[in-house]
């Protein structure tokens, strides 16, 4: 783990400093029995969850940090997070070698121990992860930040454990921006909200009568773009979450919507309506230069730029029904990607640029699916009364979306892995829609 500079700001986005801990391996003179490298295979369709024991960390915030780590790993669907009540060894400690036999008895494959301490206003947390069968240390790290950032330390620890065991970066030190919904169906209140991916620290960013729709994070996670619907029109706002500064993005008329950031964060691509027709435009936030990318009497909306910055996918009904198209960055060469039965919309590129997630409507039901970048190999992941608006986790493994289970039910945030497994409700207890996943925080 590279050392990052400490940022003494009390802001909740203050950086986490991390470093390697001195290994305890030196104190275990006899290497354990040869064991296969402990690894979790994320691609295997029927992989059994890996049993992992996470002991309560010692020190201030210790129990709370352990609880967050357990919850994170459990929700990933890849781990069987064992109940601490079942542990045989109770005298665990970050600088104590485990009694591996006690852990083998309860079939733990990995064991995590840790402790926290404060010095001044800094919280310093160290932890080790042990390979139980191999009786060796797999990981030893230390994080520090302001005391109020203990949750983020827990998420960084979760990411480190996840990455060490799967080879993939974790999704745990991320946030979700979404719409918090309340009120009756015919008088719906929609507010802009942000929370940690585990439901921690939900924050509501708007008040007032406008209904907020379809927010997105910028590539750094520092800015948000969102749509506000009022009696007289629909406006686009870019909000800087650090400074609180907000900017309106103009379009062609009184309806500007469906915004996303470009991969370099410099521009917003969006839809603008004029005289009943909706086209796709792009605006450079720094220069103010605006370009119109589609000029067609069809509805052209829900644009998304590929991670390599070269291709735009979007929804259009220019072919008669609602389908997904792609085009070049200057708007040329539009090509239809979807030909299946039903209506396709809300295309979203995966972080690696290999897949496109989408919403499909067919046979009275809604579905979330993925396809290759050329439109081939379409795979439906989940189907329900209403699902829409997929958003990818930063590691490309999980898709968050909005779901209504049946007629008249309220929308909720749900997620599913791109493997099609691990369908579960996101940890937000109330009505919610339009989720968008942040990048991993610094």
């Amino acid at each position: 783990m590279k050392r990052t500079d400490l940022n003494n700001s009390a802001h909740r986005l203050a950086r986490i400093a991390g470093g390697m801990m001195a290994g305890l391996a030196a104190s275990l003179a006899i290497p354990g029995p040869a064991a296969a490298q402990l690894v979790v295979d994320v691609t295997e369709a029927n992989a059994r969850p890996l049993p992992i024991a996470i002991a309560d960390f010692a020190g201030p915030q210790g129990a709370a940090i352990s609880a967050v780590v357990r919850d994170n790993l459990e929700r990933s669907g890849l781990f069987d997070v064992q109940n601490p009540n079942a542990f045989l060894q109770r005298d665990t400690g970050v600088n104590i070698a485990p009694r591996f036999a006690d852990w083998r008895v309860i079939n733990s494959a990995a064991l995590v121990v840790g402790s926290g301490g404060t010095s001044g206003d800094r919280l310093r947390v160290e932890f080790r992860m042990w390979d139980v069968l191999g009786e060796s240390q797999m990981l030893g790290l230390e994080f520090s930040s302001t005391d109020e950032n203990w949750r983020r330390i827990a998420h960084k620890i979760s990411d480190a454990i996840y990455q060490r065991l799967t080879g993939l970066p974790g999704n745990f030190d991320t946030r979700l921006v979404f719409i918090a919904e309340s009120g009756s169906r015919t008088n719906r209140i929609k507010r802009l909200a942000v929370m940690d991916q585990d439901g921690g620290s939900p924050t509501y960013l708007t008040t007032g009568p406008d209904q907020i729709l379809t927010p997105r994070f910028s590539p750094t996670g520092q800015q948000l773009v969102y749509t506000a619907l009022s009696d007289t029109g629909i406006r686009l706002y870019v909000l800087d979450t650090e400074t609180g500064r907000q900017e309106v993005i103009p379009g062609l008329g009184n309806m500007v919507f469906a915004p996303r950031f470009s991969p370099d964060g410099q521009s917003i691509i969006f839809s603008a309506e004029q005289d009943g027709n909706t086209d796709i435009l792009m605006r450079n936030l720094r220069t103010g230069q605006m370009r119109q990318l589609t000029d067609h009497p069809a509805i052209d909306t829900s644009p998304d730029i590929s991670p390599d910055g070269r291709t735009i996918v979007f929804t259009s009904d220019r072919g008669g029904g609602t389908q997904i198209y792609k085009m070049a960055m200057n708007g040329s060469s539009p090509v239809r990607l979807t030909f299946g039965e039903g209506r396709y919309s809300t295309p979203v590129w995966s972080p690696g640029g290999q897949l496109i997630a989408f919403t499909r409507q067919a046979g009275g039901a809604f579905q979330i699916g993925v396809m290759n970048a050329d439109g081939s190999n379409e795979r439906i992941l989940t189907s329900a009364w209403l699902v829409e608006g997929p958003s990818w986790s930063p590691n490309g493994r999980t898709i968050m979306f909005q779901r209504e289970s049946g007629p008249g039910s309220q929308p909720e945030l749900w997620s599913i892995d791109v493997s099609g497994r691990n369908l579960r409700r996101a940890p937000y207890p109330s009505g919610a829609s339009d989720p968008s996943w942040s990048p991993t925080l610094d």
Partner: protein
Amino acid sequence: MRQITHRRTATIALLAALTLTAACATGRDRGTTNDVAVPTTVGTGAATGPGTGTAQPPQGGPGSGVSTGTGTAGSGIGGAGNTTPVQSPEAARAAAREAVISGLQLVGDRIFFETDSSALSESAQTVLRAQAAVLRANPLQRVMIAGNCDERGTREYNLALGARRAVAVRDYLVSLGVPQTQMDTVSYGKERPIDDRPNSEGWAINRNGHTFVLAGQ
């Protein structure tokens, strides 16, 4: 003055009668998908709007119905031989506002669409012809036209479809002589349903174009 007062009283009574009937007929039980129940006392398909039914049209005013200058606020009648004093601009605006609000309530302020469509059905056009008469007779009052969608579509596409619907209504009203500058359009997508039933009846109601006077305008 006495003569005019008498006419005005008669007109007030007429307006009240028609409005009461309209309220019964345009309630929630709208029945079929693209039908708006136009009050039978004023007849359907009346190109010149209300007032051509069984009740006597207000004297001295143009035949376009109760929402004109012979209305309650005493605005200038416009017919020949009249001695009404010239109104202040504020009063004229207020009169036009009241006339449009009550006129739209009378003839129907919503028309309905098929799934994924912004085409105007025959019955929609009938209602819009009546709306046009109300608007042409009251050029001082502008209206907003909102396009609405049912919940069975994705959010952004529905915002765009709602705009198509609103402009379809506007353009048809323009073709009937309503100045485009008298109308604004907006889409509410699927965000502002008026019917909470999660079935085809409710969705049919929510696929609508709504003509109304904005608060404060």
